[in-house]
């Protein structure tokens, strides 16, 4: 029982970190209906910026964090303005491919600027795990879970109450109607990329602290797909539930199945779940159901 609980709780913790990345992903999809294959690369970029400032230039966290967040917001704006705006209204293949192209550029750029070797991020968080009953929890995971929780509540408030959030929902619902009532659709697009960049920046710090920062950090972006599909591509709570679910399932499965198949269950099972989810319920648990008969 202790083994299971340990796997499960730690899986949930990892899941909350998936959820953090998934939030940015869902935000972009919700507002601009772009599936961002470069979300992992944004996370990687955030990680690199944080690592460069903390480990290479030895800036204090109080300086590094605001700089990171501001630069990620700028990056988000720049990506929207430079790359995605010319493609508004193009077909799905183009938009998917352009984000893939963007991912390649980010990979090359990051490795070119900061080198290919792994950089560690050291945060002022204690390393020894907490022990509760038989379950070990490492503090960074707790921090990640808290941040994800804060973001979730923040996003929920943002979409429900704030002017900008309502505008975003309007744009997601119907671009033309939103334009007609005077919403600046372009600014909404840019803002959603900026917020996604922000979330990715924080995700980059947390993940970078756990895995070390190199170009492989971008791979966590691919893990987000199962999470968002399970939760529903356009649902903020869905992203969180999906992330937690994928984290828990892959952790438990890896613990029990890995010894029999020689490892790698973590990289396999989420995608099987995703295919099943796509076949049975493509809009996920909480996503908006699009009914279309062809």
């Amino acid at each position, binding site marked *: 029982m202790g083994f299971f609980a340990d796997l499960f709780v730690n899986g949930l913790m990892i899941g909350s970190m998936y959820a953090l990345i998934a939030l940015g992903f869902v935000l972009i999809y919700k507002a601009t209906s772009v*599936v961002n294959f470069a979300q992992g690369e944004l996370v990687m970029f955030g990680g690199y910026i944080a690592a460069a400032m903390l480990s290479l230039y030895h800036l204090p966290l109080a300086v590094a964090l605001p700089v990171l967040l501001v630069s990620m917001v700028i990056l988000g704006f720049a990506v929207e303005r430079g790359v995605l705006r010319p493609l508004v209204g193009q077909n799905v293949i183009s938009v998917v491919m352009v984000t893939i192209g963007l991912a390649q550029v980010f990979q090359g*750029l990051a490795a070119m600027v900061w080198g290919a070797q792994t950089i560690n991020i050291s945060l002022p968080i204690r390393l020894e795990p907490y022990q509760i009953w038989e379950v070990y929890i490492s503090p960074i995971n707790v921090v990640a879970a808290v941040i994800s929780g804060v973001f979730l509540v923040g996003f929920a408030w943002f979409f429900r109450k704030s002017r900008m959030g309502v505008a975003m929902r309007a744009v997601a619902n119907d671009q033309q109607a939103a334009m007609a009532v005077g919403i600046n659709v372009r600014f909404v697009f840019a803002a959603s990329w900026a917020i996604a960049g922000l979330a990715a920046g924080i995700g980059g710090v947390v993940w970078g602290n756990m895995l070390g920062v190199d170009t492989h950090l971008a791979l966590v972006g691919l893990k987000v797909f199962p999470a968002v599909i399970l939760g529903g591509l356009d649902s903020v709570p869905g992203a969180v539930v999906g992330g937690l679910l994928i984290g828990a399932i892959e952790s438990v499965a890896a613990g029990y199945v890995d010894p029999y198949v020689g490892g*790698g269950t973590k990289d396999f099972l989420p995608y099987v779940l*995703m295919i099943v989810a796509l076949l049975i319920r493509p809009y996920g648990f909480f996503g908006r159901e699009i009914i279309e008969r062809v």
Partner: protein
Amino acid sequence: MINRECGVYQTTYEGDMAIYPVPLARYAAVGSIGVLVLLPLVLDSHQMALVNLMILAAVGAIGLNILVGYTGQVSLGHGAFMMVGSYTAAILTARYDVPFWLALPCGGAVAALVGVFFGIPSLRIKGLYLAIATLAAQFIIEWVINHSTWISAGAQATIYISTPTVFGWEINTEFRRFYMILPAAVIAYVGALNLVRSRVGRAFIAVRDRDVAAEIIGVNIFKYKLLAFAVSSFYAGVAGALWTYYLKIANYEHFTLGTSVQYLAMIIIGGLGSVLGSVFGAVFITLLPIVLVYVVEGSARLFGFEYAAIADFLANLRLIIFGTLIILFLAIEPEGLYRLWGNVRRYFRLWPFSY
């Protein structure tokens, strides 16, 4: 010469619907095959290897273009389907001594089966969701091949095969490999050209342009979507099998997600929905890193850098240029190199009286 349509009056439907309705185009097609056959006479072994790589890439790219460009189903799993073909051919050759000419279509057939299986989600989902589903296919196939000992017996999931023999010919030089690959590629090219102008091809295009309308005029969407997946994966499988024979090794690392992305880049840069465009894209993407090496190496020598110092830089620069090209082509010329080629041709067709 330039006004090549002059004096060509089609009197039969067959003549009008031929792949090359104009005599000059026919001569040009035969001529370019002739040039290809005679190519080994002028190129050295290194250049020949490059040509081989281009032809191999072209086969895979044509297959992907049938699915993405003609049928409009985005696939991020092309590399995985190539992997299936590659391993099938390797297992058949290494363990069962199946001859080359039989193992090649077998590789294609098994890949087609797997492709249809992963194409089934396309019946319910499309667009973005399908792209994500095929992304899953890429990871699942990679994992299964890696983790089932029957398939990937051997270190690092690598299967070595002995030097292939085709009809008594031992394929041991670049030139002979060229003659092994070329017929398969020509068949693939002509086959694709014929497919897309047939009933099936028109159904594909109908599904791409408007699936609802296609269904209303009586196109069985499910059948044709699955068929597109089958044909595309068959091409991928054949391309993968050819890779195996070319490298004498089957290894999953040649067919990762990066490969899938690269093939997508080929058809986007070459031109979606164009067979010739796929070939252009394949040539372009194959040549890109090599040209880049020459350019960067040359300028590095100019400034007195050693090659070793810039190797990392070069790898990263390749990624950046690769990504930038994808973005630029999508934003500026979505119809790719094929469109540019068409523009040039149109200009010279009425030259010098273009107005």
